[in-house]
């Protein structure tokens, strides 16, 4: 580790972004496109080390967002930009549509109001369906279905390639990515001096996109935090690809006051996801899975789509959402200190990230940093990982198929390590390539991956340096 105050970079930056979650990565891209010299500071060993690594991978329309809220505007702006970028950056997007399902007469009574709110929110492609009609669009749904709202424009996406694409584009425009760099303290003296565990960084302005640490980072920047992060854990179960045929659409529950409830949805990778739970906790790091909660999710999934009963579990995971004491996004701008805080992005970060980035740029423009002219946007297309698009294994000369469950090739793994943002840990490699993410969970490929990744990961898969 570097001495505490050693400079991490000789140069100074226009803007330091703190936190390489989906929001931080989108902000880096937007600011770099605007001509800023950006540094991204991340506490973890890779991007998506916190809240952004675990979510339900839905690109929301915002039909159920709070009316008139900034969140709604940013979801819509973010979604629109995502859909316009997807083709050129090679980002996955699958238009599955969603069904908000009422399982009782009491829930069905709420649908009219939900649809009205959706239309008020500018989401026009909504239809109230009887249970029978909804089951024609998705025959796998239980017969107990009373009624539903069809939200035709909901999409599923690859939640990991998108932020990687944002950051990769930012880096192509000159942004720097500093990993294993926890912000310790920031001083503003005619510009920011940010002391991190990887050295000191100088920047003219700062954007706090620290997610689960948003309030703490505001404190370390010398501000009195105006919000408090209250982590909310969500556990998920991922079912085998055999489930996919039964779940062609996102199945949403009628939300209650407390939670949006358990979602059953297809993934862009051809699996089916059941989750999340919503559990308040104080720990910002540990997101454990719990047998009982996972069993409950499986049971819930089989109530909603009976054919899911008995389909094997491929993976389980848990994530923390950076909720705060308020439902609203916690966005603060301090022009006198040239600081922007994007906090409390509790569950719509993936959909709103690009919108949040536009919003952050708008706030930063007030700082009159006189950025250099925007560079030409470099062309860039990330490797496709979703099943409905051509994959690398289908092309010749892929080297070998390393992960047979997800059909990940040696060429793809090597490309990830040689990319501008190579994986820092095994999770990062999995998210970039899907190696080891399939039904056998590494039974066949983990040893080969251990050998291929020797000396390349922060926490190696194999123990000891020398072969035994």
């Amino acid at each position, binding site marked *: 580790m570097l001495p505490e105050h050693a400079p991490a970079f000789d140069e100074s930056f226009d803007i330091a972004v703190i936190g390489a979650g989906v929001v931080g990565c989108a902000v880096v891209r937007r600011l770099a496109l605007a001509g800023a010299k950006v540094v991204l500071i991340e506490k973890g060993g890779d991007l998506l080390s916190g809240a952004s690594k675990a979510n339900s991978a839905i690109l929301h329309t915002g039909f159920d967002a709070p009316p008139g809220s900034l969140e709604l505007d940013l979801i819509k702006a973010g979604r629109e930009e995502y859909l316009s970028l997807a083709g050129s950056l090679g980002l996955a997007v699958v238009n599955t549509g969603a069904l908000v399902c009422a399982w009782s007469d009491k829930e069905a009574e709420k649908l009219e109001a939900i649809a009205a709110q959706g239309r008020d929110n500018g989401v026009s492609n909504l239809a109230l369906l009887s249970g029978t009609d909804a089951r024609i669009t998705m025959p796998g749904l239980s017969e107990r279905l009373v009624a539903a709202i069809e939200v035709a424009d909901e999409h599923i996406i690859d939640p990991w390639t998108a932020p990687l694409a944002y950051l990769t584009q930012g880096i192509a425009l000159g942004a720097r990515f500093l990993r294993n760099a926890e912000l310790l303290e920031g001083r503003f003296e005619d510009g920011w001096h940010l002391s991190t565990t990887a050295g000191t960084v100088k920047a003219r302005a700062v954007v706090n996109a620290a997610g689960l640490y948003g309030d703490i980072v505001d404190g370390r920047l010398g501000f009195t935090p105006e919000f408090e992060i209250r982590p909310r854990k969500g556990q998920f179960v991922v079912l*085998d690809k055999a489930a996919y045929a039964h779940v062609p659409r996102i199945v949403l529950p009628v939300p209650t006051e407390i939670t949006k409830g358990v979602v059953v949805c297809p993934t862009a990778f051809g699996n089916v996801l059941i989750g999340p739970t919503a559990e308040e906790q104080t720990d910002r790091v540990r997101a*454990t899975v719990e047998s009982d909660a996972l069993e409950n999710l499986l049971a819930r999934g089989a109530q909603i789509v009976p054919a899911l009963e008995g389909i094997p579990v491929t993976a389980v995971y848990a994530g923390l959402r950076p909720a705060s004491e308020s439902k609203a996004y916690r966005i603060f701008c301090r022009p006198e200190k040239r600081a922007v805080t994007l906090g409390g992005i509790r569950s719509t970060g993936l959909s709103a990230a690009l919108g949040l980035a536009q919003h952050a740029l708008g706030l930063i423009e007030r700082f009159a940093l006189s950025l250099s002219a925007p560079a030409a946007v470099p062309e860039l297309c990330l490797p496709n990982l979703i099943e409905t698009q051509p994959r690398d294994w289908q092309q*010749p000369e892929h080297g070998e198929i390393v992960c047979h469950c997800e059909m990940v090739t040696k060429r793809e793994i090597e490309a990830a390590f040689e990319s501008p943002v190579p994986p820092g840990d095994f999770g990062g490699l999995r998210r970039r390539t899907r190696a080891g993410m399939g039904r*056998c969970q590494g039974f066949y490929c983990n040893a080969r991956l*251990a050998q291929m990744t020797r000396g390349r990961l922060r926490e190696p*898969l*194999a123990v000891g340096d020398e*072969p*035994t």
Partner: protein
Amino acid sequence: MSDADVIVIGGGPAGVAAAVELRRCGVARVVLLEREAQLGGATRHCSHSPFGMLDFRRIYFGAAYGRRLEAESARAGVEVRTGHSVVRIEAGGRVELATPRGVETLTARRLLIATGARETPRAARLISGDRPVGVVTTGTLQAYAAFHGLMPFRRPLIVGSELVSLSAVLTCLTHGARPVAMIEPGPHPLAPAPLMWFPRLMGVPFHCGTELLDIHGDRRVEDVTLRMSDGSTLKIACDGVLFTGRFIPESALLRPSSIGVEPGSSAPAIDPYGRTADPHLFAAGNLLRAVETAGWSFREGRRVGCAVAEDLTEDLAREPALGELVPVTFDPPIKLVVPGLIRRGNAAAPAFRDFQLRFTRRARGRLSLVLDGRVVWTREKTWMPERRILVPIPPAAVMANAVHVGFEEQA
């Protein structure tokens, strides 16, 4: 015109034995597809256990057994294609596969699938806790050690007490790892009790009736919490968790096909010839019934290979004219019965002379075979889970309208 007479999917003991037997029976074009670079399947990394005693009259270890399989295949004139991974099985004997050159399709008059079995990983066991590095299955551990000279941990907790669990202990001890303990959630070890002295003799404490409650660790496993048989909890420091056994068939290719898999076994249902409900598709080996020894799978593969060859000679051009299928029903806690189908009126020599059974748990009681309501075989004892149980298939079974394996439990 098909690309082959028979395509065999999977180059483990069952698949190789079937392919070789097909050639010996005079089948002209036999293509063996294996997704790994070598034949052998799971035997490639089992460096300790001897294979081949009954099949080749000599003992082989791990990779050497795989080389023998390769030599046998070559000698028999089997067209072996390693690095070829089947991604889809279609009706009528057509497969789509990933090859080093990209995607290809092949057709054959018959398919024989022998994709084996694997252990249940941590996720599917719904174990609580963090998800750090250092949590693997026996197969993975042995691949680390045998293929790459690596180890995923030094002081693992071992979960399970099947034969494979003892194999896992041995792999640990011979590769510089010292298991901190071995636990079995059930009240009795699943391997024969005398064998369970082995871990104890090696200084590895073995606890029955003990559950893994929680895995803790930030990047790598740091400790585990156990619930002991007396209800108390115990935290043990370790750097890995090794999940052993609970084998499940590698039947992913069949789940989306018209054949599907049986709910109890996750395996395709077959008749006593190894034939599935699709008359072009046969199956053999541990895909049918996780899990048996390599030798058992080899001999089973050979017999199913022979049945496929006979099927081809009987019917050179036309669709097979086969009898009606009767499903074999069974009582809990029986987990699976193989074959799970009887084909009425079939007279040729079958590949399976016995029903192979597994129990989900230890149970004492009377096991019986019932044809059309008449008990034709019965036996009473304590039946153990994960053990081979055989019930002879009587010739009269092919005449029955109802075939049932009954169990009456005694307190």
